[in-house]
């Protein structure tokens, strides 16, 4: 009975395969219940219309437009990103999952889900945002790159905080309270970068923000992977 036969040794490859299986399971479950995707998109649409309604005919300056976009993305994320872990605890499936998969695979699978969730939000909200707030994005390539990097950053923080909040009893606003301070570096660089991109800056001009967003996400992801086991194991 060598340990390998029992699959006790987890190679990186098996971890990635298992995280993909978990990602598909969650994606499938989400497709069936559509709870998280509804929460996130509805929130975004509501807040966007509220903003454009209150602004009315006034043409906003690029810095305000950029800040407005990221405020909408951040708070929409706060309404949907925690669901992936909270649902497992509430429906008592988290213990079943604990028994079948290693923590790192679970975190990566759930992280992937949250990234895709945020991207699907942006696919819908960004065209609406450009139309409703009549934003002329000159530097489109830098704009999209920063949106992607910023979203991955927010999804990383959101996933690890969701894992923590799922273990706490009183959830409510705790998720946003925990996530906001850690998201400030992402939000600040994303807003600054988006602003320069809207005004026509290319990737070169927004390099400082892109570097910060990238390095921040890498740091958060690695520490989350190392720390997740301490959250997941009771």
């Amino acid at each position, binding site marked *: *009975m*060598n*340990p390998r036969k*029992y*699959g*006790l040794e987890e190679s990186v490859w*098996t971890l990635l395969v*298992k995280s993909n*299986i*978990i990602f598909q*399971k969650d994606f*499938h*479950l989400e497709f*069936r*219940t559509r709870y998280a995707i509804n929460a996130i998109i509805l929130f975004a649409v509501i807040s966007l219309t509220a903003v454009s309604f209150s602004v009315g005919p006034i043409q906003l300056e690029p810095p305000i437009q950029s800040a407005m976009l990221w405020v909408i993305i951040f708070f929409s994320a706060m309404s949907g990103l925690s669901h992936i872990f909270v649902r497992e605890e509430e*429906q*008592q*499936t988290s*213990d*079943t999952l*604990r*028994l*079948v*998969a*290693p923590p790192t695979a679970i975190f990566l699978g759930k992280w992937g889900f949250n990234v895709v969730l945020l991207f699907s939000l942006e696919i819908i909200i960004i065209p609406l945002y450009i139309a409703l707030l009549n934003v002329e994005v000159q530097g489109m390539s830098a704009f999209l790159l920063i949106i992607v990097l910023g979203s991955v950053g927010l999804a990383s923080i959101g996933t690890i905080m969701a894992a923590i909040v799922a273990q706490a009893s009183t959830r409510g606003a705790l998720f946003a309270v925990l996530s906001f301070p850690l998201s400030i570096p992402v939000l600040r660089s994303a807003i600054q970068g988006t602003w320069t991109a809207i005004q026509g800056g290319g990737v070169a001009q927004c390099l400082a923000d892109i570097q910060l967003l990238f390095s921040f996400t890498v740091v958060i992801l690695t520490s989350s992977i190392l720390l997740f086991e301490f959250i997941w*194991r*009771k």
Partner: protein
Amino acid sequence: MIRIEARDLQKQFNDRLIFSHINFTLQSGESLAITGPNGSGKTTLVRIVSGLLSPSGGAIVYHIDGRTYRPVEVYPLIGLVGPYLQLYLNLTAWENLVFFSKIRGLTVDKSRLRRLMAHFGLAGRELDLLKTFSSGMLQRMKYVVALIHQPEVLLVDEPTSNLDEEGSETVYQLLDEQQQNKILIVATNEPEEIRFGRKRVDVAGQE
């Protein structure tokens, strides 16, 4: 050959001592019955042995071919059936089985899965959502899921809860098979289920 060893296990939630000084060893082919009144910590002990929960004191160790492992490291060997373990109700029975097979790194053996479901009286319900299952059927489904990977160590918390006569019969037969050459741990208060444990641990009497 697998040996589970519990050394002076103790569990405490904030100031409430659940149990302490729990000691036992179990080898393949042996079985253990965990008894004690409701809320005395039977479930807590089951969760600690299966690695879902870490003990406040003492240690639970798995010895496999001379090497020692913590419970969390040997999760592929463990199968657990318990009221607090739910399956994915918004997926169909088959989707659940496929997921649990794949995540355990097994190839999806259609015929075997179908036989397992039939064995537990769930034939023909493969494509129904689990949320349409009655509590008895869900309990049987939990056995099917726990047996996909032929676990070396099977833990069952209240084996026949929600089960009718016929369901209980199937479960007793399963428990018999399991304790022939593998490890079986049963947490129960039912007298005829306690007979499944050659060894006994009473959680309440451990003050």
